[in-house]
């Protein structure tokens, strides 16, 4: 069990906020690098979907959320989990199929949930989490809890029927839901230019009566500001918002990707829009953090990941016994 230390608020509102935002982006980056390394060394099974290059989006969004607010996440969900406060050791342990992993080895990379931090689960189904977030928003409204539900999903997911039906329900019932679309330009090999006949994906909202906003998803400040406004709307009972965060994944879709559908140049170009230096230059410019402080934050993230990997590697493997009993929750339990 971790102590969850989340610091809500504008990433430029204080020294603490700035280093917090930076820490979380670094944690995501270094987590993904560690996963790639573990996979490369044959220590990890299955597949992986890395979010390197996209760190500002979940970080900016989650900086606007309370611990009790809920999220649903995707196959590319490590960043969402971390930004919402998940424990790094249990995450890595899950990827390694260990007993202490978030799912006890039963779910893996695509299925991490964390009740404590309001993470209702990553999802292997494109679009699968969107109606679920709407349901969490409905529960919040029915129970008058005042919580907000955020669904993270990719550009590709927007073409699933699940998005459509979920968006309309949230709109007509004015639910406290945020549809957070990470537009990284591709759904696997399918470019947004080919998969959509509109320029801005946030414009999908027009058909439902949902306001949509498009932001630079690699600028954590811009993401945060849009997120804060959407959260305020949601808590005020004004209904859902679509946030489209424009970003890019540096790595292939998954391990099988040969990157044939995009150019090296395009990838390089986006590496220059790396959300980390982007934010660092802002905080330096504002004088919020010194270079030493920034280096310290980076080191802190590094240490956390190294610690998590070490702990996870040492942990006990999940065992097949008991699988049958794990299918149903015991009645009356």
């Amino acid at each position, binding site marked *: 069990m971790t102590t969850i230390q989340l610091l809500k608020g504008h990433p430029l509102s204080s020294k603490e906020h700035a280093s917090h935002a930076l820490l979380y982006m670094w944690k995501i980056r270094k987590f993904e690098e560690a996963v790639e390394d573990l996979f490369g060394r044959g220590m990890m099974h299955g597949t992986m979907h890395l979010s390197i290059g996209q760190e500002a989006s979940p970080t900016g969004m989650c900086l606007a959320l309370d611990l009790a607010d*809920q999220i*649903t996440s995707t196959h590319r969900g490590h960043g969402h989990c971390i930004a919402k406060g998940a424990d790094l050791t249990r995450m890595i342990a*899950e990827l390694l199929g260990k007993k202490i*992993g*978030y*799912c*006890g*080895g*039963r*779910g893996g990379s695509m*299925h*991490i*949930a*964390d*009740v404590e931090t309001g993470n*209702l*689960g990553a*999802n*292997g*189904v494109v679009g*699968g989490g*969107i*109606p*679920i*977030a*709407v*349901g*969490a*928003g*409905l*529960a*919040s409204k*029915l*129970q008058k809890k005042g919580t907000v*539900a955020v669904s993270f999903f990719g550009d590709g997911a927007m073409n699933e*029927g*699940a998005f*459509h*039906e*979920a968006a*309309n*329900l949230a709109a*007509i019932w004015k639910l406290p839901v945020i549809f957070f679309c990470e537009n990284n330009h591709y759904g696997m090999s399918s470019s947004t230019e080919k998969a959509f006949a509109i320029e801005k994906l946030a414009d999908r909202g027009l058909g439902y009566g949902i306001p949509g906003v498009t932001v630079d998803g690699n600028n954590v400040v811009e993401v945060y500001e849009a997120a804060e406004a959407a959260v305020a709307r949601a808590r005020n009972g004004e209904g859902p918002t679509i946030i489209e965060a424009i970003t890019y994944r540096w790595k292939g879709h998954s391990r099988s990707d040969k990157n044939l559908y995009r150019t090296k140049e395009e990838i390089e170009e986006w590496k220059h829009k790396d959300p980390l230096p982007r934010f660092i230059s802002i905080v330096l410019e504002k004088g919020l953090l010194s270079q030493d402080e920034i280096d310290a934050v980076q080191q802190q993230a590094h240490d956390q990941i190294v610690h998590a990997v070490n702990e996870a590697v040492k942990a006990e493997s999940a065992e097949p016994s008991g699988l049958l009993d*794990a*299918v*149903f*929750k*015991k*009645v009356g*339990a």
Partner: protein
Amino acid sequence: MADTTNRMLTMAEAVREAMTIAMNEREDVFLMGEDVGIYGGAFGVSSEMQNKFGADRIIDTPISELGIVGAAVGAALAGMRPIVEIQFSDFTAQAMDQIANQAAKIHFMLGGALHVPLVLRTPQGSGTGAAAQHSQVLETWFANIPGLKVVVPSNPADAKGLLLSAIDDPNPVIFLEHKLLYKIPGRDAVPEGVERIPLGVSKVLRHGSDLTIVATGIMVNKSYEVAEKLSAEGINITLIDPRTISPLDMDPIHESVQQTGRLLVVQEGPSHGGFINEVIARVSESASFGSLIAPIKRLAGMNIPIPYAPQLERAAVPQIEDIEVAAREIVKNWR
């Protein structure tokens, strides 16, 4: 427990009563579906309930099965106990991702951290002249997915007791109501109070030493008529209604087969994949196998989509006559 009130309800009334009890008992229960409000649902099951509980607890939805079931899954994860009505079970097809890939798997796949206390109620079956897209029995789809419980009540009293248990269950339960049973009173009185019937317990409706019939849903009623009729001729039938096809309680079935040595299994849906096969397989691989006198016989819907015209529709699923012929043959031919 003996019923003192002698209340003869229809299936629609019994289901409504169970939902009403549950909603009175606990605030986290609500009903959501197309036209469940003022319309009372396509088959009138939730009639008047919106007046009683308000539009926040009897929630009318747009025509969006995937969205509705998904929202119910999300609400369940967030602490509610949704009951979803899908207007016809055929349209669970629209929602299969949320049913099979989400609701059924979340508890297991997420390591037990979350669970999905969701009841999906939906009418199934043919006999209404609504043709192939409105008449299916799709229970096999659900039974094939680990993580779902599948209930197929054959009468109002069971429906009430089983639904109360389904709503209490912390897991997703698919509750399949036969359209033709909605408006007819059952043979047994429905107890007034809160008597839960646990999921996963077969019921033996009558005892006989010549033949074991296992059936679910409306086929139980048809088989019952046959059993009564044949008993006059000295053919004595044990009739067993598993009530939940997943989990499937085999004990009384084995017990009976070991006495009768003959087994007939009846279902409405097409055989391939049906629960009848599961029963046969379990008997075939068990000790009961040695007791069999006759080859096991099954009766199922024809391997066709349900046709529209009444004379065609009748031909598509087992009728009383078919059950009678089969029962007679097994007993007569295998002594």
